[in-house]
């Protein structure tokens, strides 16, 4: 258990509304990641962070923004949700000195 929590765990929202998902870690790891998982596409990287206020884009970053004002929290924001952003979102961390990532429990987001 890498001490990762995600909130909310489930959310239903309407097209055009803003949505923020939160990832919280308890062990002060430097690297944090946001992924989405969709049938037929597997896990795809949205954004990642390598420190407070240090973030970069992944392969599917359009329509998403992130912020990291504290080491323990990494926020993913959908500024104006679309139906194509209906997905399961996972947060992950890399333990210092390693390459493997440890994943949170996920947030299931439905955009109607």
């Amino acid at each position: 258990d890498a001490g990762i929590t995600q909130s909310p765990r489930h959310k239903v929202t309407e097209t055009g509304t803003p949505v923020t998902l939160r990832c919280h870690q308890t062990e002060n790891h430097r690297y944090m990641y946001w992924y989405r998982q969709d049938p037929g596409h597997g896990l795809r990287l949205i954004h990642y962070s390598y420190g407070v206020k240090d973030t970069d884009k992944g392969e599917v970053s359009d329509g998403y923004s992130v912020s990291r004002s504290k080491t323990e929290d990494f926020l993913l924001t959908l500024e104006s949700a679309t139906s194509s952003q209906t997905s399961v979102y996972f947060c992950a961390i890399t333990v210092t000195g390693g390459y493997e990532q440890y994943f949170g429990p996920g947030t299931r987001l439905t955009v109607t």
Partner: protein
Amino acid sequence: EDQVTQSPEALRLQEGESSSLNCSYTVSGLRGLFWYRQDPGKGPEFLFTLYSAGEEKEKERLKATLTKKESFLHITAPKPEDSATYLCVITSYGKLTFGQGTILTVHP
């Protein structure tokens, strides 16, 4: 471009029937190959890291092996609780590339 291909897409076994899952990969500079288990509605759970050809790792009924082109996840005498999706992931210079996964179902 780094690529990971897992086979088969789905595998059905009887309890106690041993088998293997395959992960073929192409990469420019492998830093590590990971196996994860994912249960429905949950996040991927880390199982193993393999770093170089010839390396093997074991955990209970699971054994992972690595060659220069592929990795195998051997499941010995599986039980119904081994049913899950198994993901193969490679890393090269900080970037992870995920396979599509193999859905394993073990019937009692």
